[in-house]
């Protein structure tokens, strides 16, 4: 049986004409407001279960006309796939999406250069595929679990909570066995538990032992994954790095804030309007690189982060020390002059950025140190994001409104997705005495 995994794709298309792009804005608005019933932020265009989309977004990056970079329309999708090759997975996903919802997609992309208004679905998919940009670093918080499984495991948790709410007091082992039996019986009648067979081994999960090993590695993981090329390159750049950290300008929060225009304030409101509509939020952030001479250093940093994500963080379900990110990625755009960051995270912006500062400053410094006005770093990794107010103000200043945001499970955080999997595994494989206590504690 083909193994389901998640893949991510990003399309960057140039918008034709000059701002304010009223037609495109109206088309985005139409997609954003055509929502599935039941709350959250679930535009219908991405909601067909066959698409397997976890998160998607459409963002207009509007730039002043006559400036160095052109305005663009970003489309991002994080989706389930059984195709092994990333390129094929992305193309098949685009094809399916264009076949499922050709009209809404055409309605926005027809405002972009090279998209004719009457493209057939396959032509539209081709045009989108051609405009893909590869991430320089990417992270996934719940590998191996497709939408159906995430939903099933959440429902299982609720079935267990309901069962225990009324269960007579008994020894833990008895309670566990009764719950297991209850679930086993429910599987036959509850369609939302369809496919759950507790007598079979659970489907693939991040191996518990591997996860423990990763978690206990701590800072060693960073050292172990440092390639000799990276070390050699950074050493060769030490003089430059020291010079840059002395001379680079950092974000001047006061000066910028005192100079806020009405347009700036409108942007803040526009961003706030799109936030906190569901448990998850989308962060769209784009910032110019400081100068072309930093590009190689940035690429090394990102390759390192990407390797860390693949070899280490994806198995744990947290990036750096942050356990609230579903998907995140960095991409170089506009001829490698700007760094685009797209992430899907739980809870508010303030809490997310607070986690950056409190738990993951080192990794973030590596990711962004080469970008304009980033708070001063020391040897690439230190300080930087630890300058709390300045870092948050810098982040907000380069953030863009996410006009269309889709989440498949607006009530489910990444911590719960991962926790639910361990709860489910505990039902497949009866835990030992010590594990049983830990299993009960997971039922919060």
């Amino acid at each position, binding site marked *: 049986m083909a193994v389901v995994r998640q893949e991510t794709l990003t399309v960057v298309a140039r918008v034709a004409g000059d701002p304010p792009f009223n037609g495109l804005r109206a088309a985005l608005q139409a997609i954003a407001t055509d929502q599935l019933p039941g709350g959250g932020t679930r535009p219908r265009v991405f909601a067909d279960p066959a698409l397997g989309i976890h998160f998607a977004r459409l963002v207009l990056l509007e730039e002043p006309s006559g400036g160095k970079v052109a305005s663009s329309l970003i489309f991002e999708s994080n989706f389930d796939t059984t195709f092994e090759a990333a390129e094929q997975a992305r193309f098949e996903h685009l094809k399916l999406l264009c076949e499922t919802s050709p009209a809404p997609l055409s309605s926005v992309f027809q405002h972009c250069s090279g998209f004719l208004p009457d493209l057939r679905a396959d032509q539209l998919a081709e045009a989108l595929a051609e405009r893909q940009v590869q991430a320089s670093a990417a992270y996934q918080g719940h590998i191996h679990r497709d939408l159906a499984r995430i939903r099933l495991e959440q429902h299982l948790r609720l079935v267990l909570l309901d069962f225990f709410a009324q269960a007579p007091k008994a020894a833990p082992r008895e309670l566990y066995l009764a719950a297991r039996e209850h679930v086993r019986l429910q599987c036959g009648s509850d369609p939302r538990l369809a496919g759950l067979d507790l007598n079979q081994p659970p489907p693939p999960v991040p191996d518990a032992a591997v996860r423990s090993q990763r978690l206990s590695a701590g800072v060693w993981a960073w050292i172990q994954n440092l390639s000799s090329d990276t070390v050699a390159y950074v050493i060769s750049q030490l003089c430059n790095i020291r010079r840059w950290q002395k001379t680079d300008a950092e974000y001047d929060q006061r000066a910028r804030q005192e100079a806020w225009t009405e347009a700036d304030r409108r942007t803040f409101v526009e961003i706030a309007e799109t936030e*906190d509509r569901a448990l998850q939020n989308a962060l769209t952030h784009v910032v110019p690189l400081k100068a072309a001479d930093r590009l190689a250093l940035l690429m090394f940093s990102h390759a390192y982060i990407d390797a860390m994500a693949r070899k280490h963080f994806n198995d744990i379900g947290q990036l750096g020390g942050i356990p609230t990110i579903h998907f995140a990625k960095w991409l170089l755009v506009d001829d490698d002059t700007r760094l685009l960051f797209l992430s899907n995270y739980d809870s508010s912006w303030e809490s997310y950025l607070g986690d950056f500062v409190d738990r993951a400053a080192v990794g973030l410094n590596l990711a962004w140190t080469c970008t304009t006005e980033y708070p001063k770093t020391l040897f690439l990794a230190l300080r930087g994001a630890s300058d709390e*107010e300045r870092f948050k103000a810098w982040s907000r200043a380069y953030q863009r409104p996410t006009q269309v945001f889709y989440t498949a499970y607006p009530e489910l955080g990444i911590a719960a997705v991962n926790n639910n999997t361990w709860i489910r595994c505990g039902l497949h494989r009866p835990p030992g005495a010590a594990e049983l206590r830990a299993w009960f504690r997971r039922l*919060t």
Partner: protein
Amino acid sequence: MTPQDLRDIQGLILSGYGKKPAARYAIFQIVDPDAARSWLGRVLASIQYGSFRGTRRREAPFLDDLCFNVAFTHRGFRELGLTETALSGFSLPFQEGMCEANRARRLGDDGQSAPANWRWGRPEQPVHGLLAVFAGEGDAEPQDWVRIQDFIRGELCRAHGTSVITVLDTVASNLTRRKEHFGFRDGIANPRIAGLPRQATDDLIAAGEVLLGQANEYGKEPLSPEVPAKDDPHGILPVVEGRSERHDFGKNGSYLVFRQLSQDVQAFWNYIEEMRHTVPDAPPGRVGREWLAARFVGRWLNGTPLSLFPNAPGPAIEDQLDSFDYGPNQDSFGERCPIGAHIRRTNPRDTALPVPHDPELSGDPKDESVRKERLQLTNRHRLLRRGRAYGPPVHEDYDIDALRLHPSVEERGLHFLCFNASLSRQFEFVQSNWVQNPTFAGLSSDPDPLLGANRELPFRAADFTIQGCPVRRVRNLPRVVETRGGAYFFMPSRRALEFLSRK
């Protein structure tokens, strides 16, 4: 903090005036800026400042008969003619105000609590200032309230350039009981500002978590509104260190959150009574009602914490009510004090966030360094509470059967006041990420059982989970607290007030 700072900081920031039983809050507008500035100049010397921290309790100003403090909203500062540079140096939440639509949604102010339904602080009737007045000693006397009312009437008038929007009453604070309307002992947990004289607690937060111009928990001074030196020719404001062309308007001032929260006491206790029967572990009768309500709050009615006394109330020894953490009581996983209990989510102490139930991910609760790190993370989101109850108690002894059975149409609740230096990282963070968030600390759909039930965002939720083996759960929490008014104020320093008055 220097003695000069103490003379500069308004008193309410450093003390809730717990010994003064009577209080009223006058919410006002400025109708004549010149007259208002003159008035401010006249009352400047009579305002209570923090210098009492350096004097003995039997000396002035403790012996003063009546004390008061003033604060302004962003609109209020603008009315008073504060320079644009300073106005744009305040934080964005303060500039936009509590009733801004996106903010209201995030704070859970929807439905009945929506700003459009507020008694005061509505977008179309902007508030400019707050005059908070305190009086009395020991048990409150009716005369104390009369004196406060007379004072407000005399000070806030057209001749002084101001017009009262509303005067908010409080009920006498009673040191021996200090109950909030649901019947629980209140006002227990409150951090103290590090560096002040006379501290009797180890629950300290950096001064810059409350005051601008002081270092915060990150070792940085929060952004503070400044004025160009030329706009302060008399040199009233302190010069910004290293930038003599700027004077610091914000130093020793603090952002003040004011929310009028009504409480439906009968609905709360009726719900408890109804649900008590559905929880197999709840004892029968009245004891069971207190048992379940205590899970919601995290404390028994007498204030003793569940984490120390999980099965029955302990002795209410004043200085022991707040001296606990969860880890050392084998309560890292909510098996004594539920994870979603009100006091645990408003101050999680050493709870591992956001995943307490996974020690592999969040660290071993027995590891002291891990625990300290968690306390440090929590301390970046603390509030200095200064609120008082309003409206008559349903029952004078707060008997829980009477609270449930006595019908009462009068409104009652809490004037929630708190100080912080960062509205976004402190008050708004606590309100949206800890109080409203149904997935707080790994929960499924559990908002704060007192403050957060059935709010629209991030999604409608109304469950409460009692961790243990087995875990228990109650459903359909009602909304028992509604917002009736509110605003963000800034309580400036003495020097900033003097600067404003001389404009």
